[in-house]
């Protein structure tokens, strides 16, 4: 599986949203499914799927689908989306 597929899958699973809604315009707190409870579920999902451990500040900063890509890349340079 490619990194982008894993990432989209993680969002679909954690936020319980249809695949079609996981795109560049998906933002924390704008989409009703992506609230603070779902956010921690998403964090756990991404950490599991990409084998990383985020810093506290990055969890707070991960405010969009786009931002998630950027932060993940910072943790693992071999990931490209």
């Amino acid at each position, binding site marked *: 599986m490619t990194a982008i597929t894993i990432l989209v899958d993680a969002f679909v699973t954690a936020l319980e949203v249809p695949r079609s809604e996981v795109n560049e315009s998906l933002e924390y*707190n704008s989409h009703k499914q992506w*609230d603070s409870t779902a956010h*921690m579920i998403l964090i756990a999902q991404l950490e599991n799927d990409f084998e990383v451990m*985020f*810093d*506290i500040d990055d*969890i*707070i900063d991960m405010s969009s689908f786009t931002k998630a890509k950027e932060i993940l890349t910072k943790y693992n340079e071999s990931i490209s989306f």
Partner: protein
Amino acid sequence: MNWEQLITLPVYQLNQAEKMPLFNQQLVELAHYHYQHSENYRDIIDFLYQGKLPEDEVPALAVRLFKHHLLKSISTEDIFRITTSSGTTSQQVSQIVLDKENALRQQKVLATIMKQWLGGKRLPMLIIDHPKVIKNKFSYSARGVGIQGMSLFGYDHTYALNEDMSINIGAVSQFIDKHKDQKIFIFGFTFIVWQYFIQKLKEKNTQLGIADAVLLHSGGWKKLQDKAVSNQTFKSQLNTVLGNVKVHNFYGMVEQTGTVYVECEASYLHCPIWSDVIIRKKSNLAEEEKNGIEGIIQVNSLLPTSYPGHALLTEDLGIIIGEDNCQCGKKGKYFQVNGRLAKAEMRGCSDTQS
């Protein structure tokens, strides 16, 4: 100074001469901001101060006002979340209106303060509550908000209780065993930690033997005071049952989420740089000039921008112990909370105090 700069200030390092001029200037600016942007706040101030904000002071609103009115400084379409107090002790709950910016700021400030006590790294986290407490979505209870806010500092979040408040001993043992070589983070509300965890483990004669942990707890002592449980008793019984655990109580309220007051090793609560505590006399609500005298706690915070909650007269009694000279080394005011104001002594909801 804007928030990008304010957030970079050291949490507990500035002394009175360094902090207060800066803090007071910001607080006055914030009061003017709310006076301009909040119709409710303007109405209250205009009524009490003959049509204008006093120049030499920042008036405090009685915290109970938030139980009776939806006070906001933003337009309805910018409301992102309304947080509420738990409402277990009274039927009325506080309603706090947040926009995205204010909600994010609360989280960032809380994170900055908590890192001082937990360290910068996330720790395996044991939550002394049951998982259903965070399930309700749009409107969060104070308990849910508290757990949610603290979850950020942990990973492998494990709930220690079942829905009927019994201990999920299987989950707890497994968690402790799994993380036995690491420092763990335990969080819960004071009464729940005591009643449903410590006391139950004690009854069962169970000792968990935790090697290294930090426990943060909050939510008030009232129910424990009724049972005559002191902070010292709480800590010593907790250590007997759980093991090597550093215990920090913290004081805070849903009306000023973010700026929490954490208890140091010397058992005093400390003001972070973004908030201030004032003690007022019960008799006439004048500011208590001397430290060491009990009165009503007023909390001032620079965080609230979407609602006029920057200066609040609480219903709690406390004592300022000192400023800049706590034995733990932190600068700023340090204090203790003694309990709640008796019902008969509370002022009407329209009462405010400068």
